[in-house]
C-alpha cells in the first residue's frame, strides 16, 4: 500500500522562527550573570510599631496560607511536585491545592525542572505576568545550577537565578515531596517577615 507523505505544512513560518531565535539569543547574551538572591530581609531588624505590625501580620498570614502555584514544570521534578500535590502529601493542607495555568492568578512559581535557553524567554514572561508580590522556589539541582545538564552549556541555563530572582533553593535531584514542603514552609517564614507598609514613608507624608 502506498501512503502519501503529508507534504508541506500549511503554516510553518521561518520568519517567526528567526524572530523567536533572536529573542533567545538576546536573552542569552544579557543574562550571563546570576541575579543576586533577595536575602536582605534575613539581616534586617523588625520595626517596632504595634498597629502596623498587626496589619502586616494579618496580610502576611493571608498571603502565606493561600499560595497559588503557576504551572511551570518543564521536566522530571514536575512529578515530585505532582506527588506533593497528590493524595499522599496533599499540598491542599497549606491552601495551595490549585495549580494555576494562568500566571496572572498565581503568586508562587515552583520551577520544577531543567531550564533551556529556548524556554527561558517564556519563563521570564510567565514570571513577569504573575501578580505581585510573587515568589520563586528553585526545586532541584537543575533549577539551582543546571545540575547534571550544566555541562551542556549550549542549551541549558545554569540555574533559574540567571533569569529570575529565586527566594528558596531546595536541593535534590529531584527533592522528595517532603523536602519541597519544607521549602514551602521556609518561604512562608519569609513571607511572615515581609513589611507591607513602610513606616518611614508614612511618617514623611
Amino acid at each position, binding site marked *: 500500500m502506498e501512503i502519501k507523505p503529508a507534504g508541506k505544512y500549511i503554516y510553518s513560518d521561518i520568519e517567526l522562527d528567526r524572530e523567536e531565535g533572536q529573542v533567545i539569543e538576546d536573552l542569552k547574551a544579557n543574562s550571563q550573570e*546570576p541575579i543576586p*538572591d533577595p*536575602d536582605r530581609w*534575613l539581616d534586617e531588624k523588625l520595626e517596632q510599631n504595634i498597629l502596623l505590625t498587626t496589619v502586616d501580620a494579618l496580610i502576611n498570614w493571608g498571603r502565606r496560607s493561600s499560595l497559588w502555584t503557576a504551572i511551570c514544570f518543564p521536566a522530571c521534578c514536575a512529578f515530585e511536585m505532582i506527588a506533593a500535590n497528590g*493524595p*499522599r*502529601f*496533599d499540598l491542599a*493542607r497549606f491552601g495551595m491545592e490549585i495549580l494555576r495555568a494562568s500566571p496572572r492568578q498565581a503568586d508562587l512559581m515552583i520551577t520544577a525542572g531543567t531550564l533551556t535557553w529556548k524556554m527561558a524567554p517564556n519563563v521570564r514572561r510567565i514570571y513577569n505576568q504573575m501578580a505581585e508580590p510573587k515568589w520563586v522556589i528553585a526545586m532541584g*539541582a537543575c533549577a*539551582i*545550577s*543546571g*545540575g*547534571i545538564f*550544566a555541562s551542556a552549556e549550549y542549551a541549558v541555563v545554569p*540555574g533559574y*537565578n540567571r533569569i529570575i530572582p*529565586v*527566594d*528558596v*533553593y*531546595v*536541593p*535534590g*535531584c529531584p*527533592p*522528595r*515531596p*517532603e*523536602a519541597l*514542603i*519544607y*521549602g514551602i*514552609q*521556609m518561604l512562608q517564614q*519569609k513571607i511572615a517577615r515581609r513589611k507591607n507598609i513602610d513606616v518611614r514613608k508614612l511618617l514623611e507624608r
Partner: protein
Amino acid sequence: MKFERYGIGIAKGLTVTIRHLLRHPTVNQYPEQRLNISRRFRGNELVWNREKCTGCGTCAKTCPQGAIEIVTSTDMTENKYVVDKYQVDTGYCIQCGLCVEACPYEALYFSHAYECAKYRRGELVQGKEDMLDRPERKVSGYFYPDKAKELPEQTMLVEKVTEKR
C-alpha cells in the same frame, strides 16, 4: 453517538468514589507526621569520615558531574595524604550515588536528611566541616547494609500505616 445506557456508567463510577469514604486515608500530614523513609535513601548531603579517608580522590574521579572538589597535600612524616579541602556543592550534586559506591575505604556515606532548603545559593555548598561524620548525623544505608539495619523500617503505603512522631 448513541446513549443507550445513559447514566449507568457514571453512576457506577460514582459508587467507586463514594466507597472511598470508608477507606483508610492515604494522606500523610507531613510536618506533624513523618514517613520513615527508605533505609537506602540518598539524602541531599554527604557524610565524610575523616579517619577512614586516605585522600585517594576516587570519589571525585567517579563523580559524573565533577561536583566533588578535593585538594590534598602529602604529609611526609606519616607518609600519607592530608585532605586540605573537601567540598561538595549540594545544589549541583544529583545524588546518583556513584561516589559512595566507588569509595574503596568506606569513608563516604549519604546522609539521611532531606530538609536542606536554603535561602541563599552559597549556603548550599558543603565544606569540609559540614560534611564530617558526627554521631548526631543520621547516615543512610545506601551501599552499607549493616548501617541500613540500624535504621527504622520504611513506611509503605501498601501497609496502610501512617506513623505519628
